[in-house]
């Protein structure tokens, strides 16, 4: 009951967040000085073409009307049609969303356990060789912008030095995202290298705090084996604070895949977003903005619930 109430409250907050974001997205796209009709139709377009375009996509309607139509569409699962080819957005984004979600899922699947492992091990070996080496190398990795990292990986593994992995990924339309796992390797590697350092640093910090706590020392004074102290006494307490960071990183991946996707020609929402922004394809921009915010809200919600579940203090307060 208690959890349910809290989840509902968070959910309400999430809905509020999405509402405010939708307003912002809408107003921002209204403020675009560039005329989408012109941008889409190109310099060939005649005045009539432009007028027809505006009528077709309801751009001649009053703002409030446009907003409510849009929101209604979003809620009913029909977020509108793309300006560039008149196709329903979901038709041509559906696959891309699947692809990007798969990329994010795989990225998290690799980077989260990896950062937990690295972070805890560094905490255990605090100020020893592994910790120092890890701290410096993770710092360098974290500090390097992804595009630099990715470009180096391509030169190293795909084109100039060793030609072992494909330089770009090719997921054919209609095929599942795992149809080119070999091509997945470099994008995943880039993403993992970009995300893991940050999370593992947070895990390390959180783990160190726990390892220094009185109850861990007490565990040792009770004569428990180090293994038990670590996995039973330290881990459950260290993991709670890292949920937020993991969530933040999943959300980051959602918004930040643009770079990775353009490096590896990955057919995902990041590229769609870049195209849509360049082509002033407003319905697509709006939809993607909402989608990414949605992911953010959902992962945060999941992190909140996760934190509560592993933290008895929070869990029991509710019941």
């Amino acid at each position: 009951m208690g959890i349910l109430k809290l989840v509902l409250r968070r959910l309400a907050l999430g809905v509020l967040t999405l509402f405010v974001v939708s307003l912002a997205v809408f107003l921002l796209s209204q403020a675009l000085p560039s005329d989408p009709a012109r941008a889409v139709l190109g310099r060939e377009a005649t005045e009539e073409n432009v007028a027809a375009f505006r009528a077709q996509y309801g751009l001649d309607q009053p703002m409030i009307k446009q907003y409510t139509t849009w929101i209604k569409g979003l809620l009913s699962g029909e977020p509108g049609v793309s300006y560039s080819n008149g196709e329903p957005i979901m038709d041509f984004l559906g696959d891309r969303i699947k692809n990007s979600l798969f990329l994010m899922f795989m990225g998290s699947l690799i980077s989260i356990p990896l950062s937990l492992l690295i972070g805890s091990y560094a905490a255990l070996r605090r100020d020893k060789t592994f910790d120092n080496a890890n701290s410096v190398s993770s710092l360098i990795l974290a500090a390097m912008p992804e595009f630099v990292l990715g470009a180096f990986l391509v030169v190293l593994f795909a084109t100039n030095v060793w030609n072992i992995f494909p330089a770009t990924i090719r997921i054919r339309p209609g095929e599942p995202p795992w149809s080119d796992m070999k091509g997945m390797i470099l994008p995943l590697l880039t993403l993992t290298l970009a995300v893991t350092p940050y999370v593992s640093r947070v895990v390390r910090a959180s783990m160190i705090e726990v390892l220094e706590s009185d109850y861990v020392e007490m565990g040792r004074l009770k004569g428990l084996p180090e293994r038990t102290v670590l996995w039973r006494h330290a881990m459950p307490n260290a993991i709670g604070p890292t949920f937020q960071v993991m969530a933040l990183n999943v959300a980051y991946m959602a918004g930040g895949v643009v770079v990775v996707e353009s490096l590896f020609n990955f057919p995902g929402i990041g590229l769609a977003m870049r195209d849509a922004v360049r082509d002033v394809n407003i319905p697509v921009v709006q939809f993607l903005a909402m989608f990414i915010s949605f992911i953010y809200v959902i992962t945060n919600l999941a992190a909140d619930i996760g934190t509560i579940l592993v933290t008895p203090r929070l869990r029991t307060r509710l019941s």
Partner: protein
Amino acid sequence: GSDEEGATTETTAAGGTETTAGGTETTAGGTETTAASGEGKKGGTLRVAVVGSTNDIIDGQYIVAKPDQFRLVMGWEPILCYDSDFNISYEHALAENVETVAADHYIITLKSGIKWHNGNPLTADDLIYSFERRLDPDLGLAPALSQLLDVSGLTKVDDLTVDIKLKQPAVTFLNGLAEYTATIVPKGYTREDAEQIGTGPFKLKSFTPGAESVHVRNDDYWGGAPLLDEVQIIDFADAAAAVNAFTSGQVDAIMDLPYAQAEAVKGNGDLTLMVSEAGSWLPITMAIDQAPFDDVRVRQAMRLIPNREQMVQQVLSGFGSVGNDMYGKLDGSYPKDLPQREQDIEAAKALLAEAGQENLTIDLFAPDDTAGLPEMAAAFAEMAKEAGVTVNVKVLDGGTYWGEQYTKYTFATSFWGTRPYLNQVAAGSLKDAVYPETHWPPADSDFADKYAAAIAETDQEKRYALIKEMQTEEYEDGGNIIWGFNNLLDAHANYVMGLEARPNMLNLDHFGRGMKRVWLDV
């Protein structure tokens, strides 16, 4: 920005006017153009990398971005075409013959026995529908054609013959028929058709904008079945990704190889570089009726500013040729005898001083969606400094740049494809041109009258005389700074046979005319 240079432009080559007089002559069936023609291995899939986006379309008669050209050429064929010397030809075209009855009266006869992808025969009705579709003002596919023709001028003579009466005499009409977008689509065709039917060597199997299109062999192709089983045109988000895919062997060929990669490809024994001369150009445009360019001396001074060799080096990495403020490079009428204009800062300064514009400061506009234009503007600005002119480059997003302000800028940049001289005048150098970027001609000039006379003149010599006068006027007083023409740069793996680098209007040897004689030597 995208690099659909030549996008939204109907490209035509010069030299076509030659055949207008005796347009009835044909050189049907000539196949000697393709070096590797004749036999080749059957089968295989050709994968070609292009830079594309979700904005790409497939339409039998229209393109938005450059990959659309490729996809159009794979499935549809034009009424006429050019041979490798830019003479009008019937070889890859659907017309058996086009008879010039008068400068405003033509009769088109189609080749017989040509079948659509669905097995139906190609007829005069399809031809008439194709003209009607291009003229449809709602679709706005061919604004230049609409100035010459309306649907009432089309008359079906028999199943393969159509009689055409123009609204006004225009010997350029034939050139129009040889444009690659002047195709014939089946009656009732629309862009939304689930099955995209054409007469071309490959049938469209699937198309996902921003991802790929797949084209399979048309076994019933009228010119003999092509060799490849399948052609995949794969979209890449940017040129770097496309190059990586090409050099790591994920694709067999690449359209528009970035200049930077030319040397690398040349040095790689497994890859073949294709450098094709073309007639397309990137001008800096001055509105001749707006200050300070309403003073002809300022225009002349500006044209003396660029170091043209350096511009070709810098903007085109040397893959191009120096321009002489004159377009229509591949046209037979191109004035090779006009002295090459060189950089002359002192003369420019003097002219500016005379005009009272010593410390001129001016904004130069460029769009962000056309590769090369902002950089070209920047390079020009750098050179202008020497002449004491401060040029501020203003980059606008494509949508804004080509919007309401377009053709109203005082000082701007643009791009044009390959066209014969007169066709280009109609497109850009008349008050009622499609895109009057320079607002040419001046109010007191008889340039427009000369154009009207030239376009109605079927005698080539007389026409050339008129053209020469027009060219000289533009060369002296015009508003375009044309510093060079760019080449087309493509590349393919050595095992891709049947593509040749030669002067051309479209990439990849005019996309191998639909890749019909291309094969894989593996």
